[in-house]
C-alpha cells in the first residue's frame, strides 16, 4: 500500500476528488511545523503576563530571574527599540478611529489579562517558564470595564489617555429605510447577541527567529507570511529584502493566525539582539488569553414586512466589543457583515450601523467568517422570528424574498453587485434531502413522547474572495493595501512543474487543488506538479490566505500564469511544426497542430525545445515559466441552504444535534473532496458556537474560559455525520467560475442551529433565545417561560 498515486496520462483532473498531495508527509509524522524546528543554539522565550485586567505597573523586579544560570535576558517595554507599534491596517476614508497604541510589551499599564509585561529568554523550554515565575511585578489596579454597553458610557476608560472607549462609528445602507418601515404591515425588533468565541486551531502559535549577517529569517505559524515580513521590516526598521518569513506546516488558523502578534516581533527582535535563534511556543492557556477572539457583537435588528412576508426594510444596529487593543483588522471585521446584510434577498432598504467599543478584554478580530456569520445569523434568525409573527412558513418567507436566479448580476440596495446565484435552486435541492412534511409529523409524534425536536433553516450568501483592490483598498473600503494574488508556473527541463503561489494554506489542500488546475492546462499529471507556498523568499510577492480567497483569487492567478506558459508552449511547438501558434492544441497529453495528431510534443518534449533552444528565432525567449498577478473585478458570492435538526431535553436543557444537511454552491468544483472537507469543518465551527463554545470574562476582567476544560470545542461524540450536496452556479468573475468555500459552512451553521432550537422550544413557550444553547441557558429559558 502506498500513499503516492501513480501518474495518470488522461487529461482532465479538475473536478475530480483527487486525494491530497499533502497527506503522505502528514500521516507519517514527517511534516514540519514550527515547533519541530530546533536550530543549534536556540533560545526559548516565556512571557510574564498581567493577572490584572487593568492596572498600572508600579515595579518590575527581574533580578531573581536574571540570577538563574539558564536565563540569558529579561526584557521589558523600556528595552524595546522598535520603530513602530503593532499595526492596525484599516483606515476607512472619512472615519476617525480612536485607536490606542499597542506595543509587544505593555508600557507602564496593562489593559487586559495576559497583557505581556516582560519576556524571559533562556536556554530551554522548561527553565524559561520557571524563570518567568521569578519576575516580580507589582500592579496598582485600575477600574475595569468588561461590558460593552457599559463601556459606551465612558465612566471607566479602557485607556485613560484616550478621550473615549468608542473606537468608531461606521454605517452602510441603501434604499429608503424610513419609507420601508412606513409601508410595513408588521415591524419586529430583536436584540441578537453573537457571543465571543476563540479560533481554536489545534496547533498553538509558534515562532522561531534567526539572524545571520544582517538577514533575518522567521518561521511562524501564521496565515500571512508576506504581511509578517512587511511588518517585521517596518517595526524592526530592517529593509524588507533582508527579511524572510516562512510559514511551514501550519496546524490550523481559522482567522486566528491572520494577525501580526507581538510575540512574533519580539522573537525576531531578541534574535537580532542576542545573535542566537529565539523560539516561542504558545501554551493553550496563552492561546485562549492572547490569540485573538472573534464575534462579540450585540445587534438590534429591526425588520419591516408586508403580511405576505415581503420584507420592506432591514436595519441592524451593531455594538461590537473590540477588546482592549486594535489589532490588524479588529474594527473592520463587523463591517464585512454589512456588505451582505441583504442576505440572499431582495430587501429594498437595508442599513447597518456599527459602533465599535473597547473593553478590558483581549482583541477580537477575524475568526472564520469574520462579520458574515454574525450578519447571516441576524438575517436568518430575524426571518424566522418574522415568519412566526406573521404565522407563515419560514421557508415561504425566504422564497418570497429570494433574489430570483434570472436577476444576476444583481445589485443590492447598498450597491454591492452579487455575481451569480440560484438560491431557490439550493433550497430545492436541500428539500430533496429533507422532507419537511414528514419531519413535522415526526416532530408531533416525538413531542407526545416528551422529545422536543426542532428543525431550522438557513439560506445564505456571503462575500469572499477578498480582493478587488479598487473595492477594498485605501481610498474605498480603507484596507491599507491591495487585494491581488500572484503565481509563478515553472516547467523544468524534464517537464516537471513547480508552482509558486502567494497564498499560504494551513490545512486547505492548496497543493492538490492548484496542481489539478495546472496539470490540466499544461497536459501533465498533478502528481508531477509541486505547489510551493508560505515562503516569502520563494516565488513572487503574495497576499496570503484569509477571507476564502485562495482559490477564487490565488487559483485564478495560477490559471493565468499557466495560460501564459501555454502561450509559450504554443509558440515553441508552432515553430517546430511550422504552424501558427493559434493552431496548436493539447490533445491526449500531447501538443499538436489541430487536426494533425500524428506529430506532437509531450510537456517534457516541449520543455526540451524551450531549454535547449538550438533552433528558435532570435526574438523568442528561451525557457518555460511565467508569472501572473491577478486583481479581480469583483468579489465572489457563494451561497447555499442548510438545515439543522436538534433534540432538546426539557428536563436538562441539553440540546443534541441530530441531523445536519448542507447544500452549498461555490461554483464548479476543482476538487469535491476538498469542498466537502471545508464544508464539514465549517459547519462544526458554527455548530460549536451555537451549542458549546463561548469565551467568558467575569466582571473583573478575569478570563473564565482559560483552557479547553472550560472552552468546549465539539468532539466527535457530540456530532452526527453531515449530509452534503452541491449545486454549481459559475461565477462570471474568474475564468474558473469558482467561489470560496472555507467559511461558508460556518456562516450558515449557527443560524440553522439557532432556528432549530427555537423551533423545538416554541411549544414550551420560549420564543427567542441567544446562543450558546448550553443546558443551563436552555433549561433556564424553559423554566422562565413556564412561570
Amino acid at each position: 500500500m502506498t500513499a503516492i498515486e501513480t501518474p495518470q496520462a488522461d487529461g482532465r483532473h479538475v473536478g475530480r476528488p483527487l486525494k491530497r498531495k499533502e497527506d503522505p508527509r502528514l500521516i507519517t509524522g514527517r511534516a514540519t511545523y514550527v515547533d519541530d524546528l530546533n536550530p543549534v543554539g536556540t533560545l526559548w522565550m516565556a512571557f510574564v503576563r498581567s493577572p490584572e485586567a487593568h492596572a498600572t505597573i508600579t515595579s518590575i523586579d527581574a533580578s531573581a530571574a536574571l540570577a538563574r544560570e539558564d536565563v540569558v535576558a529579561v526584557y521589558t517595554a523600556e528595552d524595546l527599540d522598535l520603530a513602530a507599534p503593532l499595526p492596525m491596517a484599516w483606515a476607512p476614508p472619512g472615519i476617525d478611529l480612536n485607536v490606542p497604541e499597542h506595543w509587544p510589551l505593555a508600557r507602564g499599564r496593562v489593559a487586559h489579562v495576559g497583557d505581556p509585561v516582560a519576556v524571559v529568554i533562556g536556554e530551554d523550554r522548561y527553565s524559561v517558564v520557571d524563570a518567568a515565575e521569578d519576575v516580580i511585578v507589582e500592579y496598582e489596579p485600575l477600574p475595569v470595564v468588561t461590558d460593552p454597553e457599559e463601556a459606551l458610557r465612558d465612566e471607566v476608560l479602557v485607556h485613560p489617555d484616550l478621550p473615549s472607549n468608542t473606537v468608531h462609528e461606521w454605517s452602510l445602507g441603501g434604499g429608503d429605510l424610513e419609507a420601508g418601515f412606513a409601508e410595513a404591515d408588521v415591524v419586529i425588533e430583536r436584540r441578537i447577541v453573537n457571543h465571543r468565541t476563540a479560533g481554536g486551531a489545534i496547533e498553538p502559535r509558534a515562532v522561531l527567529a534567526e539572524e545571520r549577517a544582517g538577514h533575518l529569517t522567521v518561521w511562524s505559524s501564521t496565515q500571512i507570511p508576506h504581511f509578517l515580513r512587511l511588518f517585521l521590516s517596518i517595526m524592526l526598521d530592517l529593509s524588507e529584502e533582508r527579511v524572510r518569513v516562512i510559514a511551514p506546516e501550519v496546524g490550523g488558523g481559522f482567522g486566528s493566525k491572520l494577525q501580526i502578534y507581538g510575540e512574533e516581533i519580539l522573537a525576531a527582535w531578541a534574535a537580532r539582539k542576542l545573535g542566537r535563534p529565539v523560539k516561542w511556543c504558545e501554551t493553550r492557556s496563552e492561546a485562549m488569553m492572547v490569540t485573538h477572539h472573534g464575534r462579540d457583537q450585540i445587534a438590534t435588528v429591526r425588520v419591516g414586512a408586508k403580511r405576505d412576508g415581503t420584507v420592506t426594510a432591514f436595519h441592524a444596529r451593531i455594538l461590537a466589543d473590540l477588546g482592549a487593543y486594535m489589532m490588524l483588522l479588529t474594527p473592520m471585521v463587523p463591517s464585512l457583515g454589512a456588505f451582505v446584510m441583504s442576505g440572499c434577498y431582495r430587501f429594498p432598504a437595508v442599513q447597518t450601523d456599527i459602533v465599535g467599543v473597547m473593553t478590558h478584554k483581549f482583541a477580537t478580530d477575524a475568526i472564520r467568517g469574520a462579520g458574515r456569520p454574525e450578519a447571516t445569523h441576524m438575517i436568518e434568525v430575524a426571518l424566522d422570528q418574522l415568519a412566526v409573527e406573521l404565522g407563515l412558513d419560514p421557508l415561504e418567507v425566504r422564497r418570497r424574498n429570494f433574489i430570483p436566479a434570472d436577476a444576476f448580476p444583481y445589485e443590492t440596495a447598498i450597491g454591492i453587485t452579487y455575481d451569480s446565484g440560484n438560491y431557490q435552486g439550493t433550497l430545492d435541492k436541500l428539500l430533496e434531502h429533507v422532507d419537511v412534511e414528514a419531519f413535522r409529523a415526526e416532530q408531533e409524534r416525538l413531542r407526545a413522547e416528551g422529545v422536543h425536536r426542532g428543525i431550522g433553516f438557513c439560506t445564505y450568501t456571503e462575500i469572499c474572495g477578498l480582493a478587488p483592490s479598487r473595492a477594498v483598498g485605501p481610498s474605498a473600503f480603507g484596507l491599507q493595501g491591495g487585494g491581488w494574488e500572484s503565481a509563478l508556473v515553472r516547467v523544468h527541463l524534464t517537464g516537471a512543474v513547480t508552482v509558486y503561489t502567494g497564498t499560504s494554506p494551513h490545512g486547505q489542500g492548496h497543493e492538490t487543488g492548484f496542481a489539478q488546475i495546472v496539470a490540466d492546462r499544461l497536459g501533465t499529471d498533478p502528481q508531477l506538479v509541486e505547489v510551493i507556498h508560505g515562503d516569502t523568499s520563494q516565488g513572487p510577492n503574495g497576499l496570503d490566505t484569509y477571507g476564502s480567497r485562495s482559490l477564487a483569487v490565488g487559483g485564478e492567478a495560477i490559471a493565468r500564469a499557466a495560460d501564459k506558459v501555454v502561450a509559450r508552449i504554443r509558440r515553441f511547438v508552432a515553430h517546430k511544426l511550422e504552424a501558427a501558434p493559434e493552431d496548436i492544441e493539447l490533445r491526449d497529453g500531447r501538443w499538436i497542430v489541430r487536426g494533425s495528431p500524428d506529430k506532437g510534443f509531450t510537456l517534457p518534449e516541449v520543455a526540451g525545445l524551450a531549454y535547449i533552444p538550438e533552433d528558435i528565432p532570435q526574438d523568442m525567449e528561451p525557457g518555460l515559466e511565467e508569472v501572473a498577478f491577478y486583481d479581480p473585478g469583483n468579489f465572489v458570492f457563494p451561497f447555499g441552504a442548510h438545515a439543522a435538526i436538534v433534540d432538546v431535553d426539557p428536563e436538562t436543557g441539553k440540546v443534541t444535534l441530530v441531523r445536519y444537511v448542507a447544500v452549498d454552491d461555490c461554483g464548479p468544483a476543482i476538487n469535491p473532496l476538498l469542498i466537502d472537507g471545508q464544508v464539514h469543518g465549517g459547519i462544526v465551527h458554527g455548530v460549536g458556537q451555537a451549542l458549546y463554545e463561548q469565551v467568558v470574562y467575569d466582571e473583573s476582567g478575569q478570563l473564565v474560559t482559560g483552557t479547553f476544560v472550560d472552552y468546549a470545542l465539539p468532539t466527535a461524540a457530540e456530532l452526527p455525520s453531515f449530509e452534503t450536496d452541491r449545486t454549481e452556479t459559475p461565477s462570471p468573475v474568474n475564468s474558473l467560475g469558482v467561489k470560496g468555500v472555507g467559511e461558508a459552512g460556518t456562516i450558515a451553521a449557527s443560524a440553522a442551529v439557532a432556528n432549530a432550537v427555537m423551533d423545538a422550544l416554541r411549544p414550551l413557550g420560549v420564543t427567542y433565545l441567544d446562543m450558546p444553547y448550553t443546558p443551563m441557558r436552555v433549561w433556564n429559558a424553559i423554566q422562565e417561560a413556564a412561570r
Partner: protein
Amino acid sequence: MQITLSINGETRSAEAEPRTLLVHVLRDHLDLTGTHWGCDTSNCGACVVLVDGEPVKSCTMLAAMAEGHEITTVEGLARDGELDPVQQGFFEEHGLQCGFCTPGMMLTARALLNENPNPSDEEIRVAISGQICRCTGYANIVRAVRWAAEHEAGATAGEEAIA
C-alpha cells in the same frame, strides 16, 4: 536523569530532567516530532501515543514513567515501508486537513481496531472523543477509521461494503 525507552521497537535513551513529560522527551530529545503538543490540560489529544497498545496522552505522563513500556508513535505506524491501514484510510477518506491532530487520532484508531476490528460509527466516535480536530468536523475521520477496518489484513467485515 537518564531515561531509556522502548519506542517503535527500538531502545532509545535521553538525558532529561525527571519532571520532563513524555511528549517533550519524544519531541525535543529524541526528534520524534510527529507527536504534537496542543494544550495544557490533556483535552486535545494531539499528543496521543500508544503505551503497551493503549492510547495515552503523552502530556500526562512523565517520560520516566514510560520506562519498561512499549511506546508506539506515528513514526512507528508504518511497517517495512507499508502504511498502516489506518494511515491509508486517513488518506483515502480525506480524514485530515492541517494534520496536527492526525497522529494522535490515528494511534487511537489503531488501538480501537486492535480491540474491536469492526467498530460501529458510534464506537469510532466515542473512541476519538477525547481528542479534538478543528478542521474536519470528524465525519471523514470516522470514514477513515471505517476504511481501515474494512482493509485490515484478514478483514472480512467490510468487503461487502467495498463491493
